[in-house]
């Protein structure tokens, strides 16, 4: 489904991600783990078009998406969440999700302003879809509250709901469990599996703590200082000496 071919990102003299090659198959949950500053988010930013890689190509469903702008990549079916939650602060919970439907409403300024019948129909459908998503993530009770007034864990869920509203085929989650306690993290992981099954998704997720994602990932990639130091099943990763060294620091 998603494939990167030796993508490299250099910022001046610093190589943030070096020769990163990843392959994600349909309906898999793949983990991307590594210590702070390993280049995980940079890898995400290249896939979603925020950065254009210095070298290498990225393919989604066998077509080259390397040079596409972020909005076109979302249109192709890759949605993402952010490590430092980026909800629209001045909008309500419902509006945040509804906004993400704009892509599929496909209305220009005039069509939308004049409220033409075609637009109204799609807008109505979008409202229903957004409402269903809120129910699916259990936020329907807070629909009219300001997005930023939600507690942290719910903001994370809202970000996922918002990403789902773009009707993606693939979901990229950037540290969805950051700042959560173990119980919350476990709930969230169950929730991610549920979302994958329900919406027929493929998921690539970044996590800092590898224990959190061990349980749900089919395969994992480990980054350290921009290099891919290991990849394999969770069991293989757990026992890999290089991974243990990167995480614990061994002399």
């Amino acid at each position, binding site marked *: 489904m998603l494939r990167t071919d030796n993508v490299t990102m250099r910022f001046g003299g610093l190589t943030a991600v070096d020769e990163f090659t990843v392959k994600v198959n349909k309906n898999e949950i793949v983990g991307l783990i590594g210590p702070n500053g390993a280049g995980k988010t940079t890898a995400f930013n290249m896939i*979603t078009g*925020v950065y254009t890689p210095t070298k290498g190509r990225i393919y989604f469903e066998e077509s080259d998406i390397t040079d596409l*702008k*972020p*909005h076109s990549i*979302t*249109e192709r079916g890759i*949605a*993402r969440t*952010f490590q430092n939650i*980026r*909800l*629209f*602060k*001045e*909008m309500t919970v419902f*509006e945040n999700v*509804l*906004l*993400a*439907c*704009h*892509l599929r*409403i496909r*209305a*220009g*300024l005039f069509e*939308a*302003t*004049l*409220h033409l019948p075609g*637009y109204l129909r799609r*807008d109505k459908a*979008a409202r229903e879809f957004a409402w269903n998503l809120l129910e699916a993530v259990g936020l329907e009770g807070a629909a009219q509250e300001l997005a930023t007034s939600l507690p942290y864990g719910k903001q994370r869920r809202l970000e996922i709901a*918002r*990403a789902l*509203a*773009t009707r993606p085929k693939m979901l990229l989650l950037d540290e969805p469990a950051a700042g959560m306690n173990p119980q919350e993290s476990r709930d969230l992981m169950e929730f991610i599996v549920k979302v994958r099954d329900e919406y027929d998704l493929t998921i690539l997720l970044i996590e800092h703590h590898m224990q959190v994602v061990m349980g749900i990932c089919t395969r994992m990639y480990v980054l350290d200082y921009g290099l891919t130091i290991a990849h394999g099943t969770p069991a293989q990763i757990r026992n890999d000496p290089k991974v243990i060294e990167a995480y614990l620091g061994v002399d």
Partner: protein
Amino acid sequence: MKRNHLYTILGVAAILLFIVVADKNFDPFVLRVFNLSAIYIVLALSLNLLNGFTGLFSLGHAGFMAIGAYVTALLTMTPAQKDMNFFLAPIVPWLHDITLPFLPALLIAGIVAAIAGALIGAPVLRLRDDYLAIATLGFAEIIRVVLTNTQTITNGALGLKGLPKYATTYWVWGVAAASVIFMVFLIRSSYGRAIKAVRDDEIAAEAMGINVFRVKLSSFTASSFMAGVGGALLGHVLTTIDPKMFTFLLTFNILLIVVLGGNGSITGSVIAAIGVTVLMELLRFLDGPMNLLVVKTDGLPGLRMVIFSIMLMAVVIYRQRGLMGNREFSWQMLSFRRFLPRGKAGGA
């Protein structure tokens, strides 16, 4: 809910009645101020679309207004009037004989301003914040300089006099109402949500599949259209235009209205447009000679602008979000403040 509809109908009827009464009974000076406030509503809304809703800090409004004012002036003046104006150098032949009715001229003025907006927007909207402000300011000055130097088209620094007085009370308030309706429908639509998302967080908006650049450009173009129409109306109310009218000071006045009313509030812009325009005239005595018992002044032109600057500073310090913040008027708002009996909560 039903009660709110009733209030709305009554409110609109009251405003219509007031406009009719004003048109019949106000003396010409008061009526002119009244009509100017309608024009300032159009202009403030167009700037608020950029500054308040899209989050683009633009200072180029006077330029688009100038384009609108000149286009409509040249399209509506009769050949005889043009001959009278262009005594230094004759007007180019293709403009000499065109005389259009007001409505097409007004629309063409808006469209030409919109095209100019799109052409200027395409390069400058890649900039952000204060860089964008400087770039738009620069372009507005370029427009003004071009207008000053194209003697055979715009009559240069001499300006144009004797524009037909087409902009009646009904015209200007009609356009103001149309602008308010346009803004309300736009902001409530899916596109309006996209516009606000771009303002709140560009990176997240992009990740939600919104073409940020296209949204900015459409917003800039629509705003330029409204500025062009506003400028055109202004020309036909004042009946005289010249390039010196369209300096940065004009943009500043509109910006003042937007900030006082509240960035991102349609209601705020409407209230502040009327308030500032009326105050602008009421405070005119400050510019003239004054006798304050102790101090005697013999006229300080520009003193009333000091008052506005002080108001602006006070708002920036004590009420950053302006009169309305980014909220809108609703009947519910009044009932929560107990100006109206409380009904069941419902959408307004």
